[in-house]
């Protein structure tokens, strides 16, 4: 719930230059290792959007898989394997999939 609150706080800020805008669409990217369950996030979004004055907003969730790469040679480490490079033995580093981001908004604004 606190993450959805944070989402709407960011939407509020993004809409400041567009005071007459209606929020149509929100795209959020959730990493596999972000610790966020997408369906719970969606439920919280639908529960809060009316209260946060965005009743018509649709939510699109984009799932981002975790990607581990060797720090030394950039070889990818497969899911479930030891976090050590299969080619050179170097330590693996998480390159993507551990965050949650507000990526994009679509607004409807008066065309004057």
């Amino acid at each position: 719930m606190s993450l959805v609150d944070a989402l709407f706080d960011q939407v509020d800020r993004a809409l400041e230059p567009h005071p007459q805008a209606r929020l149509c669409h929100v795209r959020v990217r959730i990493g596999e290792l972000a610790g966020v369950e997408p369906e719970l996030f969606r439920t919280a979004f639908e529960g809060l959007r009316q209260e946060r004055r965005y009743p018509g907003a649709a939510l699109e969730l984009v799932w981002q898989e975790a990607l581990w790469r060797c720090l030394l040679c950039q070889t990818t480490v497969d899911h479930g394997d030891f976090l050590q490079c299969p080619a050179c033995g170097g330590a693996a580093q998480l390159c993507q999939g551990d965050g949650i981001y507000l990526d994009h908004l679509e607004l409807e604004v008066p065309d004057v």
Partner: protein
Amino acid sequence: MCDVCGCGDPARTKLVQVDVGASLLSKNDRDALVLRQRFRELGITALNLMGSPGSGKTALLEATARALGGQRLSAVSGDLATTHDADRLTRAGLTSAPITTGTACHLDAAMVGRALQDHPLLGESMGHSDYFFIENVGNLVCPAIYDLGQQANVVALAVTEGVDKPLKYPVMFKNADLVVLTKTDLLPYLPDISVAAILDNLARVMPKPRMIQLAATRDQGLQEWLAWLQEQRDQVLAVGPAKPTAELLRRASRGLRPVAKGIG
């Protein structure tokens, strides 16, 4: 219909696309940055202790206080409904305060900052403590998401929790700097629990797996834990206290607590 001048024409609108690309944790990250800088100024070693309910987090801190004399330790304890853990730590000799979270299953940086403001004894003790333990709410998911300004993350994992917790909760163990395997005195009664299997699973989710084993209530195996604490302490001492940043000086000039005393 037009709702601007009442002319009755169909309303003309257009769609505007806005790329944002902002982390939903950015506010917490900013709060954590302020805490981290303040910890550095105080020269205190801040550690975020996480783990399941009943994994032995409080018992570990009680044993730590027994071993270190309890005079140089401060703590906050996150709990949904009670102050039991903070009370135990106070009795053990730490300067501690509770953070009662209600329905929230984790601590965030703002909660920690508020606790340090709301409990003057705790804020005061920070100036002469070596360690500040943030005992998080018992939970293996959400606490791992929120930066609290800590120097390192410690995860307590009890032998009674089974061997596959690292695989089931990779987010927690991915972020751990140290796993403390607790209640190891029970291992003789748990024939299906293999420490080697736990280590194997950790190596699949934790980039630099490091685990120590102890039985806190029996004060068994504490030496390795105390040595790890000293390593963390040495890192802080090697760098020395940081000078206040412009941001913190600005906050101080707005009437917040002095930067050299407590948090706020």
